[in-house]
């Protein structure tokens, strides 16, 4: 990909993001989203982010790996528990990375 292409894609991303943010600020007259749309929107974060997370944990080498040797899966499951208990993104990240590093050292992949 050329740098010009990347820049154009970024501008497109920026326009989409800004468009979403400004949409209801300028959509005068109608302040309420149609119910089916707001009903669907509330599941977007859980669905999209989970769809990104799952392959990162279960397919670190692009093939399904549910063995104990999959250190990312174990660290990720620990992170799920931390996220549930602390509700803190920062703690989830810090503890998840520490667990991953310890497991990598044990597995001898560092």
């Amino acid at each position: 990909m050329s740098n010009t292409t990347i820049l154009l894609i970024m501008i497109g991303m920026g326009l989409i993001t800004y468009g979403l943010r400004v949409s209801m600020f300028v959509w005068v007259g109608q302040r309420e989203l149609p119910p089916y749309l707001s009903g669907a929107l509330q599941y977007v974060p859980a669905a999209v982010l989970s769809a990104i997370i799952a392959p990162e944990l279960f397919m670190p080498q692009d093939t399904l790996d549910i063995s104990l040797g999959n250190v990312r899966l174990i660290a990720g499951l620990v992170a799920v528990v931390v996220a549930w208990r602390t509700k803190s993104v920062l703690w989830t990240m810090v503890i998840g990375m520490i667990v991953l590093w310890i497991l990598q050292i044990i597995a001898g992949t560092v």
Partner: protein
Amino acid sequence: MTDTPTTKQPDPRRSELLAGARAELPIVIGGIPFGMIYGVLALAAGLPMILAQGMSAIVFAGSAQFIATDLFATYTPALIILLTTLMVNLRHLLYSASLAPHVARLPLKWRAGLAYFLTDEVYAVTIHHYTQNKEPTAPKHWFFLGAGITEWLFWQTSTAVGIFLGARIPASWSLDFTLALVFIGIVVPTLRDRPHTAAAISAGLVALLAHDLPYQLGLMAAAFTGIAVGMILERR
């Protein structure tokens, strides 16, 4: 008019602006690692420094930027990158709808300007201020602006630091894994009922099953499955 500052009364616009900055500060400090990691990942994905920094200014949306670095690195077609951005940032439409009644009477240039700052973090403190602070005369859009500028400055700076450090961090540190961890930290606390939990699990399963589809189409299939499952369970 409340617009004229007097010696006895401090300018309410200024105090709102500063209050917004103060409210945003703890969140942006917590966000510094994310900006830095974005900078590191963007360089690792092969983006030149200027574009890595430019994305923070042009897009100004953390999670979409994180994912985009991954998509750029794997030469994903532009259309898929844009569709993914749309999906990932759809929640900003909700923020916009939620704040719209509060900014409805502002001039268009204010509404258009403030919208640029409507990130997760700015939305969180601003909606709280609008709904909790009952003073009807306070110029609360200045609070919105103060929170937005603070968030913007910290995001740009932490990106720059990440880019600066990026070249010095070895791959064996596995910093790319922070992307999954950040998303786990965001998603898990939102799984408060069965429809949301089912939406997350079904989306994750489809993402694994459809992983080999080209152009990240598996991500789209998974997202739509999760949304459909959530809506169906909610209706029962």
